[in-house]
């Protein structure tokens, strides 16, 4: 086997351009697969991180009735803040939020919005709620960039906000947009209006009530408290995992095509080699190689393309990966309305597992496509091979 590696390496280096082209194509596959997978891992990491920092903290308690996908549940999804939560809230380790459906009328047009009440003093989430303390004769409100764009609102804009209180009475007042924040988390931006929790409780006639709580304590398996049940971070980010999984599956088709191209080149090279190098095969046999050893040599030779490709990929791939991890990949389109947390610039994350698994897959695939044509050698008559007769 050691000789097979030695000879295979000599043969590959000696074959020059032919080897070079195959290795370049294969190394490109290596780099693209690792980079693209790195982007997905980075996206996953960034999305979860952003969700944690902007929306969910280390987890949430939801009112039993609350279902973000069912608007009819919002009206009844509230209950008094449990006493058990109050110490955490006072320490700033838990943020109560109260939700209600409402309507805004920017430029005289009607636009549905989710009104969310949050304490202006909270520091747990990155939402700039301290701006809600602004002094104005209207209700201070903050919105995200996407909401601002879709409703043509800007900082200082005033707009009528209408809601229905807990008694079923419609009410309306003017709000002033005191800040527009930029976030990658669409669930706190798209069609959302944030106002002070106390104002919200007062307007809805729901004093001391909340829909959900985000908390900073990462303790798992916290028991349900009153009408509120635990939603772990894992549950809350499950959609991202599912989306990444789907995206990964879609990208696998792309990897498959890339690998297929590289494998086709290697397969062709191997097939051609077996026809073109018949005399060489005969010579190996004449000099004492068994046919099986020749098959092994050709298989190793083919598989070694992957080893050389990995080496080449390391030469230009590692600087590229480091550069990408530093500057990130800027998505060439507006991702703000994709419905999930996608930063305009995604930073790939590469793990040893990712690199090893990619290398292993490429190496195994290359070995298989090299062995396949090499099996023909076993059927070759050495005396015919020595004369270079096509069989």
């Amino acid at each position: 086997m050691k000789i097979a590696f030695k000879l295979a390496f000599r043969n590959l280096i000696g074959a020059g351009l032919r080897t070079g082209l195959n290795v370049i194509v294969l190394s490109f596959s290596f780099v693209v697969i690792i980079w693209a997978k790195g982007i997905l891992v980075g996206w996953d990491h960034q999305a979860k991180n952003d969700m944690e920092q902007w929306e969910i903290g280390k987890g949430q308690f939801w009112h039993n009735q609350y279902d973000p996908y069912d608007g009819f549940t919002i009206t009844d999804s509230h209950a008094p803040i449990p006493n058990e939560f109050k110490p955490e809230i006072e320490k700033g380790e838990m943020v109560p939020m109260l939700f209600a459906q409402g309507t805004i009328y920017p430029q005289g047009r009607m636009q549905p919005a989710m009104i969310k009440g949050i304490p202006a003093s909270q520091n747990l989430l990155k939402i700039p709620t301290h701006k809600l303390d602004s002094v104005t004769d209207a209700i201070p409100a903050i919105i995200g960039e996407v909401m601002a764009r879709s409703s043509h609102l800007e900082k200082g804009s005033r707009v009528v906000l209408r809601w229905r209180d807990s008694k079923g009475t419609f009410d309306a007042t003017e709000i002033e947009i005191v800040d527009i924040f930029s976030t990658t988390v669409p669930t706190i931006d798209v069609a959302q209006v944030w106002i002070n929790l106390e104002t919200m409780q007062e307007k809805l006639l729901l004093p001391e009530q909340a829909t959900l709580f985000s908390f900073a304590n990462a303790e798992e398996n916290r028991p349900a408290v009153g009408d509120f049940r635990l939603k772990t971070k894992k549950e809350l980010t499950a959609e991202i995992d599912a989306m990444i999984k789907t995206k990964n599956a879609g990208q696998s088709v792309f990897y498959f095509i890339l690998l297929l191209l590289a494998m086709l080149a290697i397969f062709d090279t191997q097939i051609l080699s077996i026809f073109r190098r018949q005399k060489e095969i005969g010579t190996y046999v004449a000099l004492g190689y068994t046919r099986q050893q020749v098959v092994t040599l050709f298989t190793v030779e083919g598989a070694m393309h992957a080893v050389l490709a990995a080496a080449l990929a390391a030469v230009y791939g590692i600087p590229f990966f480091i550069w990408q991890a530093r500057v990130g990949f800027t998505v060439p389109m507006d991702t703000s309305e994709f419905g999930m947390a996608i930063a305009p610039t995604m930073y790939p994350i590469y793990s040893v597992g990712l690199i090893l698994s990619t290398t292993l897959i490429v190496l195994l695939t290359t070995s298989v496509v090299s062995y396949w044509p090499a099996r023909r050698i076993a059927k070759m008559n050495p005396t015919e091979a020595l004369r270079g007769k096509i069989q």
Partner: protein
Amino acid sequence: MENSAIIQINQLIKRFPMGKGEFTALKGINLNFGTGEFAGLIGPSGSGKTTLLNIIGSLDTPTKGEAVVLGKSISKLSAKESAKLRKESLGFIFQSYNLLQVHTVFENVEFPLLLLDYTTLERKKMVMDALEWVGLTDKVKSKPPQLSGGECQRVAIARAMVKKPSLVLADEPTANLDAANSHNILQTMLNLNRELKTTFIFATHDEKVIGYLKRKIFLKDGLVDQEEWMNQ
């Protein structure tokens, strides 16, 4: 015969399938070769000389009869045993040299030694010795495409001789060479035959080669037609 028989061929028949029928290349050959012979199988194309050489070299097997080479019956050897025989005891020289084109002269000559258990140092010494025999020590780093036909064949001889085999089989070794190179090559092989007592068997119809042979075996239509022994 110069010494004890290292090759015994008895009633050797070789048939090849041809279309719906068969072609008989060897029709019952009986021959013995001893240690240190410098012999040639001579005959026109289709006389069976290459077929006989291939069977002696365990690259092919007889249809009937027996060929015993260095005490081993070719027809009874497994693929692995045949390879072992070729690896350890036989050297081949081909008409078109059959050098590994992408390897250097050194690597080509070193190849048979890689299959045997020699250390790097031993291999290096043996390769340099073999290249010295054929006068190519200045071409170790050259590759076959950079060499002349004569030089290529000398590399092939060095490759065949490097492990000091008991038997060297040469199939039309001068067919692609001019007269001067042919004589040079043959003289080299003759010297090695004298110095190392290696048995050389040629398959040829080249007059230049025939002139050097100590034993001439004329084949005709798959049979030994005539045999001549030359004085030493």
